C-alpha cells in the first residue's frame, strides 16, 4: 500500500512532535485527503469550539496516490473548523508540498495548540523543528517563502501572509507563491496558532509491487485518458476559458451579481490572458499544466484563474487586465482568497453606489480597487469593515438581500439564476458557497441539461458531491475528468485490494455525510442551506439569462428532493438509518 503509515502530530503549545501510526481502519473507510482529515477532526474536535482558539486543529493530509506517478496526484488537503463559517473546512492546494511530505515519511500532519511566539515548522525526514518566525511575522507570503528558501535551501514551503496573521475569515495559505488553499479562512487558523509557515524536505520514496508495470500502465492511462480533448483545455487555456462560457450562458457575475454578462468580457477572457502568457506551469505529477504564468506591464502572477477574473474583474466592473493581475498578485502575497475579496469589494461598490454606506469605491474604479487588498489584509481604513466578509458587512450596514454568500462564505463565479443546479450546489456544499463540492454547471448551463428547471438537479448534485469527495480524498486533481471506474482501477493497484466503483461511490457518500454530521453537530440545518434573496427575487437583465431568476419555490423543491435522496429528514438532518448504512 502506498501509505507511509505515519502521522506526525505537532503540539505548538508544548513544542512536542510525535510520530504515530495512521488509523488504518479510518483510511480504509475514508481513503485520505478530504475524507480522512474530516474523520480525524470529527473524532478529535470538541463541538462548539472557537475556530481561532488553540482547541482547533489544522490537518495536512495526503492520499494513497500522493507521491506516485499517477497523473494529477499532486494535491494536499488542509482541514480545520472554518473561521468564516463555523462549518467543517477542507481546502485543496496544489504544487509540490504533498509529495514532499510523503517523501519525508508522513501521510499527514496534525497541528494542535498555539505557539507562545511566532514560529515556523521545519520537517526534514525524522527531524522536526519549531523555529522562530519573529523575523518573518508581518511579511508577505512571497517574502517569507524567499527567506525560508535562502535559509533552508531545497525545501517546499507553505506560508501565511498578513491576512492570516490578522485572523481574517478569507485568509488563505500560499505555497510556491501562487498556489493557495483558498477558502474559508484556513490561513487564519494557522495565524491563530502563531504558525507562520511549514517547510518540508524528504529523502524517501514510495515503493509498491511491480512498479515498472504499474508505471507503464499509468503512462498508457495518461496518454489515453488524461491528455485527451476532455482535459487538454487546461493546457491550451486553463480556467480563463470559463469567462466566455459564463458570458454566453449569462452566468458571469457582473457588478455584484446585478447582471450575468459583462460588456467588456473580451478584455478579461482567455484570449486576453493568452496575450500575457510567459510560461505554462504544472503541479507535481500533472501532465495538464493548467497554470498560466503571465506578465503585463510591471505585474506578473501565476494566474489569474477564472474565479479571479470573474469576482475581481466583471463582478467589480473592472476590465483592466493589468489591474486584475496586480490585484491577484497582491492577494496571493497577503494571502487573501480572491473569490471572497472580489465578492466583498463588489458588494462594497454596490453599497456605496446605492448610498447605503460609503466605502469610497465604485464599480470600475481601478485606482481604489488596487488599494483594497492592502487595506483589507491590514484591517486599515474601510478595510476594517471589509475584512469581516459580506455577511458581517450586511449585518452592520444592510444590503442583506444582495450580500452574495451562503453560511458566511462568499459565492464564487457562477450565477445560480442561469444554473439552478449551482444554486443547489452552493446551498448544500459542506463549507458554504463552494463550486468545488459539485460543479454541475459543466453539464447543465454549459451542457445539454435545461438550466431553468428543478427537475433532476438533486440527483445531479448528489452524484457530483459524492464523486468529488472520493476524488479529493484519493487524491486526484479536479481537472482530470476521470471516471469512478478509472479511480477504482488505479486505487486497486495502489491499495493492493480489489476495489470497485460501487465501493468508491459508497465511500464518497460516507465522506459527504460525515461532513454534514460535523456541521449538524455545530447546529447547522435546513435554515442554513439557503441562498441570498437576490437570486430568488431579482431578474437578470441581459444576454441568455435576461428576465431569469431562481424562484424560491423551485429552490425549495430541489432542496426537499435533495434531502429525500440523501436519506436526510425535512430539516436536513441525517436519518439514523443512513448513519447505520454508512457506518457513521
Amino acid at each position, binding site marked *: 500500500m502506498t501509505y507511509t503509515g505515519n502521522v506526525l502530530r505537532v503540539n505548538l503549545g508544548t513544542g512536542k512532535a510525535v510520530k504515530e501510526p495512521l488509523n488504518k481502519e479510518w483510511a480504509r473507510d475514508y481513503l485520505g485527503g478530504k475524507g480522512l482529515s474530516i474523520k480525524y477532526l470529527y473524532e478529535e474536535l470538541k463541538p462548539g469550539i472557537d475556530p481561532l482558539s488553540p482547541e482547533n486543529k489544522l490537518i495536512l493530509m495526503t492520499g494513497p496516490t500522493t507521491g506516485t*506517478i499517477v497523473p494529477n496526484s499532486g494535491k494536499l488537503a488542509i482541514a480545520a473548523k472554518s473561521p468564516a463559517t463555523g462549518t467543517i473546512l477542507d481546502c485543496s492546494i496544489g504544487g509540490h508540498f504533498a509529495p514532499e511530505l510523503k517523501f519525508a515519511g508522513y501521510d499527514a500532519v496534525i497541528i494542535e495548540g498555539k505557539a507562545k511566539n511566532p514560529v515556523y515548522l521545519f520537517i526534514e525526514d525524522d527531524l522536526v523543528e519549531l523555529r522562530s518566525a519573529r523575523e518573518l511575522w508581518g511579511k508577505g507570503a512571497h517574502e517569507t517563502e*524567499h527567506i525560508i528558501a535562502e535559509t533552508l535551501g531545497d525545501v517546499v514551503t507553505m506560508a501565511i501572509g498578513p491576512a492570516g496573521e490578522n485572523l481574517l475569515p478569507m485568509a488563505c495559505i500560499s505555497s510556491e507563491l*501562487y498556489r493557495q488553499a483558498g477558502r474559508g479562512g484556513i490561513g487564519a487558523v494557522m495565524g491563530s496558532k502563531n504558525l507562520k509557515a511549514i517547510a518540508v524536505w524528504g529523502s524517501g*520514496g514510495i515503493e509498491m509491487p511491480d*512498479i515498472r508495470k504499474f508505471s507503464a500502465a499509468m503512462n498508457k492511462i495518461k496518454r489515453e485518458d488524461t*491528455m485527451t480533448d476532455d482535459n487538454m483545455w487546461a493546457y491550451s487555456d486553463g480556467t480563463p476559458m470559463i469567462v466566455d462560457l459564463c458570458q454566453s450562458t449569462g452566468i458571469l457575475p457582473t457588478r455584484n451579481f446585478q447582471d450575468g454578462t459583462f460588456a467588456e468580457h473580451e478584455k478579461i477572457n482567455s484570449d486576453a490572458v493568452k496575450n500575457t502568457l510567459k510560461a*505554462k506551469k504544472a503541479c*507535481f505529477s500533472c501532465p495538464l499544466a493548467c497554470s498560466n504564468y503571465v506578465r503585463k506591464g510591471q505585474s506578473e502572477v501565476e494566474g489569474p484563474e477564472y474565479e479571479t477574473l470573474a469576482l475581481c474583474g466583471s463582478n467589480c466592473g473592472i476590465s483592466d487586465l493589468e489591474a486584475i493581475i496586480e490585484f491577484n498578485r497582491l492577494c496571493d502575497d497577503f494571502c487573501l482568497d480572491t473569490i471572497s475579496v472580489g465578492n466583498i469589494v463588489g458588494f462594497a461598490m454596490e453599497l456605496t453606489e446605492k448610498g447605503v454606506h460609503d466605502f469610497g469605491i465604485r464599480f470600475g474604479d481601478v485606482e481604489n480597487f488596487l488599494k483594497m487588498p492592502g487595506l483589507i489584509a491590514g484591517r486599515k481604513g474601510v478595510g476594517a469593515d471589509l475584512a469581516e466578509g459580506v455577511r458581517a458587512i450586511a449585518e452592520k450596514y444592510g444590503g442583506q438581500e444582495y450580500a452574495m454568500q451562503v453560511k458566511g462564505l462568499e459565492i464564487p463565479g457562477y450565477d445560480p439564476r442561469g444554473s439552478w443546479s449551482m444554486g443547489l450546489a452552493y446551498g448544500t456544499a459542506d463549507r458554504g458557497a463552494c463550486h468545488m463540492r459539485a460543479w454541475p454547471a459543466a453539464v447543465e448551463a454549459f451542457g445539454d441539461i435545461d438550466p431553468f428547471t428543478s427537475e433532476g438537479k438533486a440527483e445531479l448534485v448528489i452524484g457530483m458531491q459524492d464523486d468529488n469527495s472520493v476524488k479529493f480524498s484519493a487524491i486526484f486533481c479536479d481537472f482530470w475528468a476521470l471516471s469512478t471506474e478509472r479511480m477504482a482501477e488505479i486505487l486497486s493497484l495502489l491499495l493492493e485490494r480489489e476495489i470497485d466503483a460501487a465501493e468508491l461511490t459508497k465511500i464518497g457518500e460516507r465522506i459527504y455525510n460525515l461532513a454534514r454530521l460535523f456541521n449538524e453537530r455545530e447546529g447547522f440545518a435546513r435554515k442554513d442551506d439557503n441562498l441570498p434573496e437576490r437570486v430568488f427575487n431579482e431578474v437578470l437583465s441581459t444576454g441568455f439569462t435576461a428576465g431569469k431568476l431562481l424562484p424560491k419555490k423551485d429552490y425549495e423543491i430541489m432542496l426537499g428532493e435533495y434531502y429525500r435522496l440523501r436519506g436526510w429528514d425535512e430539516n436536513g438532518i441525517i436519518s439514523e438509518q443512513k448513519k447505520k448504512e454508512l457506518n457513521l
Partner: protein
Amino acid sequence: MKALSFNAEKCVGCKLCHLACSAQNEEVFNPRLARLIISSYYDREGLIVEGQVCDLCLECVEACPVDAIVVKNGRLSFLEDLCTDCGLCADICPNQVIIKKDKGIGICVQCRSCSNWCPTGALTFEEVEKL
C-alpha cells in the same frame, strides 16, 4: 549515439520525468534518485526553469579507473561488479546527474523512460556526434 536533450521553454515542472526514471531504474518513486535534475521554481526575479541531463559527454567513461562505465550498443552501461565505489565519476560529471548509492552508482542508461513520460516534449533524444 542519441543523448537526452532538455528544452526549458517547453518544461512545465511536473517532475513526471523524475518519477519515471526512479521507478524504472531504482524501483521506487523517489525524485531524488532520478538520473536527471529538472527544476522549475520562483526566485525573487521570477520563474526559473533549469535542467541537468546526461548529454553523453563521456567524461565518466574516461574517468573511471576500472572501466566500470562503458559504451555498449550506443548506450552507457554500468558494470557493478567492477566498481570500487571511488566516486570519481559522480564527482567529475559536469551535469551532476550520476547518483552515488550505498553500493555502486546510478547512471543514465538512455532508457527513455523520462522522455516517454514527458507530457510536453521538453525531453527528447537527439543524435550527438561522439566516438
